[in-house]
């Protein structure tokens, strides 16, 4: 149930996370941008310079996929520790546990928003400019991604205290998904007979939508519909798992 206190709780926890992230190092903002940029640089060297992928504006192409991906990957990667890291709180205070993974996803989402200017900067470098459709496209896709990420985080954070192997499975899973999703390569390079598999990957339609939106200012209704379906399903599953297990968290921690 969303009460005024729940909202206040979320706000205070998010403020806390942001402060902690930026307070402890002078270069806080720089680091949260530098990380995906460093990835982009690595892939640029590997694929453009060494393997000579035939693509224009490959650097821009990379970051338009990597930035939204980082939001999802970062949230999911830290979610195994969300409850374990707050064990003393969970064991003693009767607060809404769902707030903790929510705040994780929220703060990575805020970082994603803060990184959009970097994408704009790259667009100018490549003589492109942001499109007006971003004004509705970004909020829509953020909503879809938020729901999907929150769903995954609910599952992972709730199950990990019971099944500690979850942690390792999750980081492997994230790596698999990264390479199976058209982020460092365009979907057009996927061999024809495997193309249908792209739609079976819950994050692929979303990541493709992000890139199309950033690069061409387009938002494909078909891809969007698939993405929304996946994200609603993921969230429903995540919430069901959370509902079933969350009251046992104080026992197992």
């Amino acid at each position, binding site marked *: 149930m969303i009460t005024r206190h729940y909202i206040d*709780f979320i706000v*205070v926890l998010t403020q806390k996370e942001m402060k902690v992230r930026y307070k402890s190092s002078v270069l806080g903002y720089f680091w949260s941008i530098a990380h995906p940029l460093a990835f982009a640089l690595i892939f640029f060297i590997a694929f453009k310079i060494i393997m000579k992928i035939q693509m224009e504006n490959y650097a821009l192409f990379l970051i338009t996929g990597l930035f939204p991906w980082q939001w999802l990957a970062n949230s999911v990667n830290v979610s195994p520790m969300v409850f374990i890291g707050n064990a003393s709180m969970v*064991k*003693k*205070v009767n607060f809404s546990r769902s707030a903790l993974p929510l705040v994780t996803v929220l703060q990575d989402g805020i970082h994603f928003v803060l990184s959009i200017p970097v994408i704009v900067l790259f667009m100018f470098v490549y003589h492109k400019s942001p499109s007006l459709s971003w004004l509705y496209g970004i909020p829509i896709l953020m909503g879809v991604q938020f729901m999907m990420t929150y769903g995954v985080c609910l599952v992972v954070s709730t199950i990990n205290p019971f099944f500690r192997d979850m942690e390792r499975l999750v980081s492997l899973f994230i790596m698999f998904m990264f390479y199976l999703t058209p982020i460092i390569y365009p979907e057009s390079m996927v061999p024809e007979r495997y193309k249908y598999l792209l739609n079976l990957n819950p994050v692929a339609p979303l990541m493709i939508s992000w890139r199309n939106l950033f690069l061409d200012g387009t938002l494909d209704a078909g891809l969007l519909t698939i993405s929304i379906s996946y994200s609603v399903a993921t969230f429903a599953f995540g919430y069901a798992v959370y509902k079933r297990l969350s009251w046992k968290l104080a026992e197992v921690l």
Partner: protein
Amino acid sequence: MSEPAVIFDNISKSYPMYHHFTGGIKNFLFHLPKALKSLRGSRYEALRDISFEVRKGEALGIIGKNGAGKSTTLGLIAGVLKPTKGSIVVRGRTLPLLELGGGFHPELTGRENIMLNGVLLGLLRAEVRKKMDEIIEFSGISEFMDQPIRTYSSGMLARLGFSVIAHLDPEILLIDEILAVGDLEFQQKCIEKMMDFKRNDVTIVFVSHSMGAVEMLCDRVVWIDDNAIRMSGNTKEVVKEFEKAERNAELLRYVKGNL
């Protein structure tokens, strides 16, 4: 006699042995039938048929050895645990007093942590803001309020934590062994505040190993031994019996050790 604020009616609490799971998927999957069976069969019994009442405005002490089930009892009152059997009635807003620095973040300042803690324990932001000055004043460490609390001593952390609790208007206060920190002056202040709570009809459930503190604060005591109630009633009598049993156990260990 006032109405009860907390009623435990034949409460039992057992946990599944979670190590079957936490031991890892590999273990679990390779021995699936056995694991499932043992999961159902082996449960750890933390409390057995516990019944007691705490009346409104009363201070109840819970004593017993480590692992006897004291903290489980507090968890049940706080509502973070559900009983396996029996029913619990809790009337009023319960507030747990967290252990040193629990619910605090080391990188945030004292002021920011007051906000964090206050909201965690159920206040709205506006309510914490209104009480901020009072809380800081009570803590007696106002000159450190804008520094990150990782620079605080443990005594200062205790001051901060207790000051937040002291201003939350609890109806039922749950205290798990906390008063032993901080300097004498502040301990005195804590005791005074507790007495204040008692006068204001706040119900207190106090878990402690310090018999001195129990005798000072509590009206009645429940002694939990081996996950069941061994004795309950008048503070002096129960504490006396408990200490006697402790001494006997000590003696027995000593004798066994020398045989």
